[in-house]
């Protein structure tokens, strides 16, 4: 997994590329927590290049969401493939996360 972080209209977009698993999720967690510790108001995660996610990756996002909610921040997930969406649905997390089809939808929400 590689992680790219860009600024888009003043908010960070995190773009992980590759597989998010027990090996790579600690690195993703570190990046998320670094941004969250700065009380980032809105954080976008672009799933467009994520080919796979396991429960350690999901746990990372659940933890990030909980932390952001504590100060009123918003974590937005963008462009989940059908296979990944299916895991969120199965885990009943599709109702818990803000999930958008593309970046503009996420920004305008």
């Amino acid at each position, binding site marked *: 997994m590689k992680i790219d972080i860009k600024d888009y209209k003043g908010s960070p977009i995190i773009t992980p590329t590759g*597989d998010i*698993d*027990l*090996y790579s999720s600690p690195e993703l967690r570190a990046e998320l927590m670094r941004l969250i510790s700065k009380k980032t108001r809105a954080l976008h995660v672009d799933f467009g290049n994520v080919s*796979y996610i*396991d*429960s*350690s990756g*999901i*746990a*990372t996002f*659940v*933890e990030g969401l*909980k932390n952001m909610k504590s100060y009123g921040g918003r974590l937005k997930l963008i462009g989940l493939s059908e*296979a990944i969406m299916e*895991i969120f649905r*199965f*885990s*009943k*997390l599709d109702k*818990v996360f803000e999930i958008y089809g593309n970046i503009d939808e996420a920004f305008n929400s």
Partner: protein
Amino acid sequence: MKDSIAITIPAHPRYLCVVRDVTVSMGKIYNLPETDIENIKLAVDEACSNVIKYACRGDTTQKIDIKFSVTKKGFEVVIDDNGIKAKPELIEGRSLTDIRPGGLGVHLIKRAFDVVSFDETKKKGNRLRLIRRLDKKAGVQ
């Protein structure tokens, strides 16, 4: 050994991708439907991740043996370790309505496999047996 393959990896998360690749290869060889392969891949990854986390507790000098086979019973994956013995009665996923990090792996394993059982007769370490029943369409042509 007929129609079965075995792989041994260090108990290190770095090698989980190899296990996933082998799982997918085996699923394709046996003509499983694509969504079944995806679910099984995730489940085997989750089971091996748990071995790394709970049985081997981060001791990456330990190893994990994974055996894949196709029998009349179905697509079977047997995962062996020499780590700390699990207490199967304590292994439980969280309630899916209780939103918190963790506790999803067990659910994902049970979604993919019809049989999920620890071999209680194994003396040292753990042997987890996972079986997915196959319908007639699957199998080597």
